[in-house]
């Protein structure tokens, strides 16, 4: 039982870490919760069995880093748009081309 929680805790903690560094940091919350609960379960079992609790430290360390990153990203998220140089260029080209096309088109202003 303890092994199962250790494996689950480590997998979810690593997954949380990976997600936290990507733009999908919002998704890291679910594995963080699972890793945290696994850590609690390991602590509870270890205390009952009076065995080592070393693994919990590693899981919690990963959880704290992932949580820190997720919170940082959520608070300081500037939502800045990327480079639009190419798009602006396409816009200008299209406008120039459109004017030429519209000059040749039959436009009925009453429609």
């Amino acid at each position: 039982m303890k092994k199962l929680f250790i494996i689950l805790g480590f997998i979810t903690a690593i997954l949380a870490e990976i997600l936290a560094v990507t733009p999908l940091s919002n998704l890291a919350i679910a594995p963080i919760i699972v890793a945290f609960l696994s850590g609690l379960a390991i602590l509870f079992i270890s205390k009952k069995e009076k065995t080592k609790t070393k693994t919990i430290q590693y899981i919690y360390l990963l959880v704290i880093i992932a949580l820190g990153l997720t919170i940082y990203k959520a608070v300081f998220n500037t939502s800045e748009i990327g480079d639009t140089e190419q798009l602006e260029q396409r816009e200008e080209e299209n406008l120039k081309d459109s004017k030429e096309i519209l000059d040749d088109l039959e436009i009925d202003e009453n429609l």
Partner: protein
Amino acid sequence: MKYYIFLVMVLLSLNGITQNKTIAFGEKLVYTASYNMSGLLTDIAQVKMETSEVKTSKSTLMRLKCTATTYKKWDNFFKIRDLYESYVNPKTLTPYLYKRDISEGGYYKFMQYKYNHKSQLVKSLKRKKNSEGETWDENKTVKINASTKDIVSTLYYIRNLDIHKATPGDQQNFTVLFDNIEKTISVKYIGKETISTKIGSKECYKLAISIKGSDILKGSNSNLLWLTADANKIPVYAKFKIPVGNGELKIVSATGLKN
């Protein structure tokens, strides 16, 4: 009898051609598009809707331009730089030229419609890129209905409807040409609702949008649009449900309004 026919014709023409009372040159609406990821909304892109004046040698037209740009953090994963434009009659919002120039994560497509309303024909041009980066064109002539518009001009046309005269449950259909196929879009008026937005708390008209015979938009009342219940009818909030999830479109700023 003559007068009767004349009266019917006038009424029909009034019904068919709605005068533009809502959209001005130089209007700029900025939105944030977010996508729902396992219950959490993530901001993905910025959507801009702008209008401007375009003068040709023969006439003055209105350019309706919509752009979608992904935020910097998403660019490495899925870069979107979409451009949709429609050149319309500023008085009636009848489109003459439509262009769709999209670049989505390496996928490129260009569509152009040249309208001929007299003969009810659209000359369409489709341009795509193959895997080697070479472009190829496909020309087609599509027969359309008298009221067929493109997606951009329809969006602006909806804003120009007399929604204040509608009663909850009223529905109107619009024919939209998309990817050379005519599709019917249904707009149903649900009622009034006051919502809080970045440009203040606004009383809005709540509309449900659905596409007939297509599964792009899921659910019957899941795709909603809120237009301010004033003379400008600004689209302030939209909720959409597509096969790969659901998302939202929220207004950030609105400038250059007509009223």
